[in-house]
């Protein structure tokens, strides 16, 4: 049994310890946000936050997460109440197929929680690990810039864990 803290909830899961976090999120917790793109840490479609830091969940063994909180795009808001980045992505219609987008949002979230007013170059360098094949880059950048202009995003803070 592995204990995993995801989006503020604790889960006890019967999974092989070497299972990449991505498969646990998608298959055991039935979360759609993190996507399988390459399984090799080359595209960022699977990006989630572990303890506030962006990781490639396709490579990250679930047993290495330990007590650190995991956050996926589902934690940022809902269709009815989207979080700041989600709202900015909707406002800018920063989606073509959208397959890369949840990963984009999570990587951007990590930056905006730690850096108050990142420069354009900082944003681009930070987003560099994530690929978008549709070429939605201009809109993704515009959405991130808009949220960045509002100052630092609050982090998840101390994780409220409900079992």
């Amino acid at each position, binding site marked *: 049994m592995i204990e995993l803290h995801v989006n503020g909830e604790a889960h006890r899961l019967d*999974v*092989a310890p070497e*299972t*990449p976090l991505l*498969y646990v999120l*998608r*298959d055991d917790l*039935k*979360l*759609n*946000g993190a*996507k*399988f*793109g*390459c*399984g*090799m840490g*080359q*595209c960022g*479609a699977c990006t989630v936050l572990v303890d506030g830091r962006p990781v490639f969940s396709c490579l990250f063994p679930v047993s290495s997460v330990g007590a650190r909180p995991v956050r*996926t*795009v*589902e934690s*940022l*808001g*809902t*269709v009815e109440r*989207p979080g700041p980045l*989600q709202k900015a*992505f*909707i406002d800018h*219609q920063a*989606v*073509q*197929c*959208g*397959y*890369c*987008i*949840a990963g984009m*949002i999570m990587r951007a979230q990590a930056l905006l929680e730690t850096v108050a007013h990142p420069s354009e*170059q900082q*944003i*681009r*360098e930070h*987003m*560099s690990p*994530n*690929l*978008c*094949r*549709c*070429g*939605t*880059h*201009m*809109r993704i*950048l515009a959405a991130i810039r808009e949220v960045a202009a509002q100052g630092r995003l609050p982090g998840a803070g101390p994780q409220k864990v409900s079992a």
Partner: protein
Amino acid sequence: MKRSDAPIDQGRRAFLAGSGLMVSFALLGSWRAFAGQENTLGATILAPDLPGDLKIEPVLDAWIKIDARGVTVCSGKVELGTGVRTALWQVAADQLAMPLERFTFVTADTALTPDEGYTAGSHTMADGGTAIYHAAAQVRQMLLDAAAAKLGVPARELALHDGVIVAADGRQLTYEQAAEGVDLHQRAKPVSPDSDPSTFRYIGHAIPRVDIPAKVTGGAAYVQDMRLEGMLHARVVRPPDASAQLESVDTRAVEAMPGVVKVVRDGNYLAVLAEREWQAVQAMRALREAARWRSTRRYPGNDTIHAALKALPQRIYVTTREGNGPVRQSQHAAPDAAPAAPSPATLSVGFGKQYVIHGSIGPSCAVAVYRDGMLTVWTHTQGVFPLRAGLAEWLGLPKDKLRCIHVEGAGCYGHNGADDAAADAALLAFRTPGRPVRVQWMRDQEAAWEPLGPAMLTELEAFADEAGQLQAWRHALWSTPHNERIVNAGRLIPARLLARPVASAPSAPIPQPEGDADRNAVPLYRIPSVRVDMHFVTEMPFRTSAMRSLGGHINVVTIESAMDELAERFGQDPVAYRLRHLDDARAREVIQRAADRFGWNGGQALPDGHGVGFAFSQYKNLMGYCAIALEVKLDKQARSVQIVRAVAAVDCGQIVNPDGLRNQIEGGIVQSSSWTLYEQVLIGEGGVRSVDWSSYPILRFPQAPVAIDVQMIDRPGHAFLGAAEIAQGPTAAALVNAIKRITGHRPLHLPLARQDSPLFA
């Protein structure tokens, strides 16, 4: 122009003994439609007199159904990430005078929707949107007439408000009430009641896309997100290359792995099914290790592919346009000399392009279940009906026992692994009755097994008089097919791998004026004599098929390079030189608009290492117009090329969703710059060698353009013209033209800016 001797097509030649010309027919827009003929998207034309895709599905209630549950509009087109679902919905909403949320909109399901063939070639709005536009207008009129009879007032005294018909005296009928007793099962009319574009609430407005909220919040949005009760996870093991034969595989150890339900081995086909996804991945890896293969052929490399294209078996399709009349295409049994051109060529230029991949960020995936004699497949295919036909033929099922339902995948940009993955799921589900099966390809499988975008070669000679006026134009190109769609079961990779393989149907190019490898090879410019020789290479070293803009990408690069070179030769501004050769007012307008907005004057003072480039094309000479001006920065030290700013001016007829159009143009510019600057499939003796994103690098954020400005010319009341592919050619050509201005040399091989590019020397 010198041409290599191409082998002739023996069978055909015998058939038409002695004749050089095999087929010859005038090709001009809609005149091409004949009843019974297949259109270029694999659907059969039944009613050539009707607008758009009403030609292939002329019955109104195939598109619009009204019953007690309300109004349902159906489209056979699919959402590929371009926003067409929303755009088609908008068209229906305005023409039915109903708010979006008040009716149901269903797309691409063989059990429910019209067969509109493939969603491809920028036909969705032009054909599918036009069909809905007219069907909805005609149904609206029928409802008004029925309401008039029911209320005993003239139809012209009735008003439509949000799905309710209102009489002057205040009496109302809902559409459902009005539709009672109305038979929508009738043939559409060639002419529809007029619509007033000024009353549109949706068409022409930047309506937010209906699919985006779920996609940014983790909603179930893709076939990858489907989780059916009792679903098994499957992974396939593919041969190391297309020629490889399975010598041996010991499956016992894999079968004993935790969660493994079964291993499927049939000829060269290998797959594993497991209870859990990660178990399937591990079992796939073990199975791959256990398999012994023998490759039976060697493949050309990146250095030899272009010579190989000239030497491989090929047919020749010649397209001519004389006196700026219609284009004519004929298939030649053997190469013949082009008719004598007026003088030695004024200019010769040619390009080589390497294989590229569609490279969907999400590798192909499908879910299928075989239950009670019915096989259902959820797939991100571009064509549920052609896929169903291929699967039915392959599995020996009647079509009515097979249902293909489109569910979105990652963007595909053409024929990628979608159909093949659907075939994997269909086969494995068919052999595992009662349990749903989800197949997900791995990244390396998508990269190695998707149909590639073809490597190509072009050679162009242009002839001008002393004043620089173009007189003649000779363009030759070499390519494998761009349209290996599912016309038979053999077009599906899994069907080729089984112990009893199905052979692929013979290749055939999409004819002009749409074109295949020769797409956009006929310039829109006024030239008295134009001839394009397409060397259609029928023996493919690598399987290739449709990728956004087909040959248009490299053909526009070639044409627009020639225009720049000629302008320079005659001391003219490139924009002015293009305008001088254009009669089409809409073409002239986008060029002028792009130039004005960009501040093009041919002699900008720019920082060191910067240069500007211009290019234009009308996609397929039939669809949207696009002119692009851009400024590029070449930094040799950093080994980088970046678009500093790009201005695009586009005219796609009546704009349905301006933000959707802008999104497509921005995305097209970014994607085409990635293809043009960085992309090539690495090939070698053993086949495809680039199977991940490090061996096939694409554009990343730091390399994205600094700014893109899209200027849209709206034409209310005009036909919808396809938009999604129009930026691919002009972006690439403008980049090449800008590099020439910076370095003084025209790069003739794509990609331009890989790390080892001579550009940085």
